[in-house]
């Protein structure tokens, strides 16, 4: 099988595009300006009737501006990937630009140091804003970012003495050896290429997968130990810092900054660049910047109201993109390519997986895992929802290496109980101890990190990610390398990627999803989604697993595979709490059963014995009459 990176099939095209781009950029300002001028004139030729070949300084500056915009857009892209929307990127650019002006003019710091200071200052402002802001809802945060733009401009106007107010701040120097428009080009190219590489490395790292995971499904992310807030905050700080870098590059290029350049229109431009190209993709912002950058310039030539007409075009493009390419041009292109490929190479019949094989492979994977000794002990758990006593004083213990079935009629409180154990609901009273450690009061992601895995009644997988990425996200919890290490791809970071990749493929193979490794989860059947969820739980290496109706919707063959996998997990010393309606399945696999009704335990013990108890029969049938067809009892 072809060796894949974590970003899967998309990497080769990206690499070629990146190399081509770098080669073009390396040909120097004169050639690049000629090229862009030529291409633009080709596009507008039907209107203007002329094709331009000579270079001019205007085009050189355009290219440099475009690369600066790219830096800001790449940062914003990282934020959008996590599902956070900001219409405030121009404020970060403003902060960077003015910091650069202060540093180089007022404090006479060297250029390169000023550049770094500007990034750091913009990043810190982002941190201060994001710390409270990202706790708010998506839309509220959008409004806060717009407020950031307003306030930033207000402050520039207010502190007139320092900033020059509306008249602007002039005479910002370029660095010594790069003090012409043509030579400054190289400074910008280096910054843009470095930014691109950093963003690429982040997107392909555990941080990139985390970002996608919280965007796709926060509940599932929490079950893998990922706290929604952290990837979003990290992305916002990085996005702000890169906005600051863009501003710090912009100020010396223009030698002059004034607040109106950073008004909300610029933020909208950045949003458009990222969304049109495709958020969360590597090439999306590049494509978006190249296309969108020309809009205001083209508009300027045809109207005396450039601001309003540009905005009108932005609005139209935004609406049209929601209609036609909601995930951007890159995703549209991939979808098209997949469709063509699928037509060319018909799907081969999958070879059925044997239950024995699944058992063997899963057991092998789990063989060397450390085993816990204490299991899960729940005592006196209570949870009232509204006026309903959904969980009303339940005691229950899941021993290591035991399958404990939790059964009860619909609405008896089973799922609520699982949510109390895994922390999605906080218990009103009682204790939940895992391997001797009290979990009450901790968040779901902390419980996952403590060794508690779970699946959901409706499979909670990360749509928009491949099966491989889904599983790697769970493995990432054990990474040792930090973000900076992944940014520069140290040996430790690369080893994590390699090992996580191999482990994920092995786990997916073990549960019979081998041929789906690179596929987007959208292509899975509902049964396969359950197995993917199971693969993710295995990857987490939990002490205890909570399974919420894992057999629901599975075909009989699939149930056999599930049973084999669960037996192997149990055999490895993992405790399993199983909520399931499929009686035969429960009877085959459960070591012990607890029956609850109205949030209270009504029976406990050997599964077969429990089923005969009058309270249990009454709970299901409303009378003590034993059912005539016991196989049909829906436990």
């Amino acid at each position, binding site marked *: 099988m072809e060796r894949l990176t974590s970003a899967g099939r998309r990497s080769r095209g990206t690499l070629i595009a990146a190399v081509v781009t770098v080669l073009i950029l390396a040909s120097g300002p004169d050639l690049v300006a000629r090229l862009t001028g030529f291409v633009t004139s080709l596009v507008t030729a039907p209107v203007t009737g002329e094709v331009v070949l000579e270079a001019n300084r205007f085009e050189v500056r355009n290219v440099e501006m475009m690369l600066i915009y790219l830096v800001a857009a790449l940062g914003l892209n990282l934020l959008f990937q996590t599902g956070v*929307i900001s219409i405030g990127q121009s404020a970060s650019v403003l902060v960077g630009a003015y910091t650069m002006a202060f540093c180089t003019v007022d404090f006479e710091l060297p250029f390169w140091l000023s550049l770094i200071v500007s990034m750091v200052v913009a990043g810190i402002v982002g941190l201060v804003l994001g710390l*409270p802001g990202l706790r708010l809802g998506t839309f509220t945060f959008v409004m806060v970012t717009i407020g950031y733009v307003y306030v930033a401009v*207000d402050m520039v106007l207010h502190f007139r003495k320092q900033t020059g107010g509306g008249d602007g701040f002039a005479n910002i120097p370029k660095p010594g050896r790069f003090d012409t428009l043509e030579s400054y080009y190289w400074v910008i190219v280096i910054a843009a290429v470095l930014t691109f590489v950093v963003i690429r490395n982040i997107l392909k790292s555990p941080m990139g997968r985390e970002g996608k995971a919280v965007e796709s499904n926060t509940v599932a992310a929490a079950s893998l130990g990922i706290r929604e807030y952290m990837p979003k905050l990290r992305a916002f700080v990085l996005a702000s810092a890169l906005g600051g870098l863009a501003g710090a590059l912009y100020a010396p290029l223009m030698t002059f900054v004034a607040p109106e350049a950073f008004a909300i229109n610029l933020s909208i431009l950045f949003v458009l660049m990222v*969304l049109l190209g495709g958020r969360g993709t590597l090439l999306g912002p590049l494509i978006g910047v190249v296309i969108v950058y020309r809009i205001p310039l083209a508009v300027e030539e045809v109207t005396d109201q450039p601001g*309003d007409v540009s905005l*009108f075009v932005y609005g*139209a493009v935004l*609406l049209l993109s*929601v209609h036609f390419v909601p995930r951007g041009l890159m995703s549209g292109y991939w979808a098209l390519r997949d469709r063509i490929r699928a037509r060319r190479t018909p799907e081969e019949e999958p070879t059925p997986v044997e239950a024995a094989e699944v058992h063997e492979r899963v057991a092998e994977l789990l063989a060397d895992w450390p085993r816990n000794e204490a299991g899960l002990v729940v005592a006196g758990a209570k949870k009232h929802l509204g006026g309903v006593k959904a969980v009303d004083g339940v005691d229950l213990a899941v021993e290591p290496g035991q399958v404990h079935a939790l059964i009860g009629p619909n609405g008896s409180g089973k799922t609520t109980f699982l949510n109390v154990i895994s922390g999605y609901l906080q218990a009103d009273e009682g204790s939940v101890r895992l391997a001797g450690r009290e979990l009450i009061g901790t968040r779901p992601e902390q419980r996952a990190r403590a060794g508690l895995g779970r699946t959901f009644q409706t499979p909670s997988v990360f749509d928009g990610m491949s099966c491989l990425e889904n599983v790697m996200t769970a493995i990432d919890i054990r990474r040792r390398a930090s973000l900076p290490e992944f940014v520069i791809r140290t040996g430790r970071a690369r080893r994590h990627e390699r090992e996580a990749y191999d482990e994920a493929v092995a786990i997916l193979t073990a549960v019979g999803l081998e041929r789906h490794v690179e596929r987007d989860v959208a292509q899975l059947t509902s049964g396969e989604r359950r197995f993917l969820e199971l693969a993710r739980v295995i990857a987490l290496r939990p002490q205890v697993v909570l399974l919420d109706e894992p057999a629901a919707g599975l075909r009989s063959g699939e149930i056999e595979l599930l049973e084999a996998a669960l037996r192997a997990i149990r055999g490895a010393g993992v405790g399993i709490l199983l909520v399931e309606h499929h009686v035969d399945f429960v009877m085959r696999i459960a070591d012990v059963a607890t029956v609850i009704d109205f949030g209270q335990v009504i029976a406990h013990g050997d599964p077969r014995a429990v089923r005969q108890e009058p309270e249990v029969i009454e709970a299901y049938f409303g009378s003590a009459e034993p059912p005539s067809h016991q196989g049909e009892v829906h436990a």
Partner: protein
Amino acid sequence: MSFQVFAELMIAGLGAGAIYSMIAMGYNIIFATSGVLNFAQGEFYMLGTMVGVLLYVTVGLPAALALVATVIVVAVLAALEHPLAVQPAARSGEEAFGWVVATFGFSILLSSATAMLMGPRLRPFPDIIDLGTWQVGGVRIDGYRISIVLVAIVTAVALTLWLERSATGQALNAIHEDQDAARLRGIPVSRLSVLSFAVGGAIVAMIGFLSAPLTTASAAVGLTMGLKGFIAAALGGIPSIKGALVGGLLLGLIETFSTHWAGGSFRNASIFLVLVLVLAVRPVGLFGRGSVRAV
């Protein structure tokens, strides 16, 4: 601060706040039925002022007729937002990125188109009616400003009654509680969502027209007014109508007093600070209901 200054700031603050309250009600009524926080809400206010200029000043219709016509025009535009922006966003399956981006795009289209057609400059809006001013204990009270506050209060009461008592209002509530269940019970969810956009647009256009003599008309006010209206709604607790009224009036007061004390440069900073602080302490706003998160 003398009592006189205090009282005059109070009146100015409530007058401005009433406008925010009305915009907030527009947000809420649309959110309650469609689950969408409509970015274009502020542009409906802007259209209220600018279509008002067109009909009342340029065409010269009588004030009452111009008001009704303005409200109808904006309501139709607002209703159009549903098929043009909201439905495609829902179809795209992109959650927040869908509707935020789509309604944002629609909002930019409205403001830039207005600026292109009618010019970007401020338009004076003559007084609609002279309600006089009174001097009470040295405090100057502007009758028109007071009546704007009354309009907001009456609208809040009327909306509340409509939502609670009328069959349509009950259907809207049912959609808010559970959209799928409402659909199963035969409630025309999509049609009522369009209606909620029309009503949300109409309320905001009305206050745009009525407050234009105080604030003047301009194609550029939409984003700012939308922001403030949203902050009012968020402070009060979305989607509570009572919350919108109180949140708006509160925001008007905060804005007026902070400007008085700290100067206009810190007006935006102070309202955003209040927003973040209030929501940090009480994420659902003053009158919002907390909901239990379930998996």
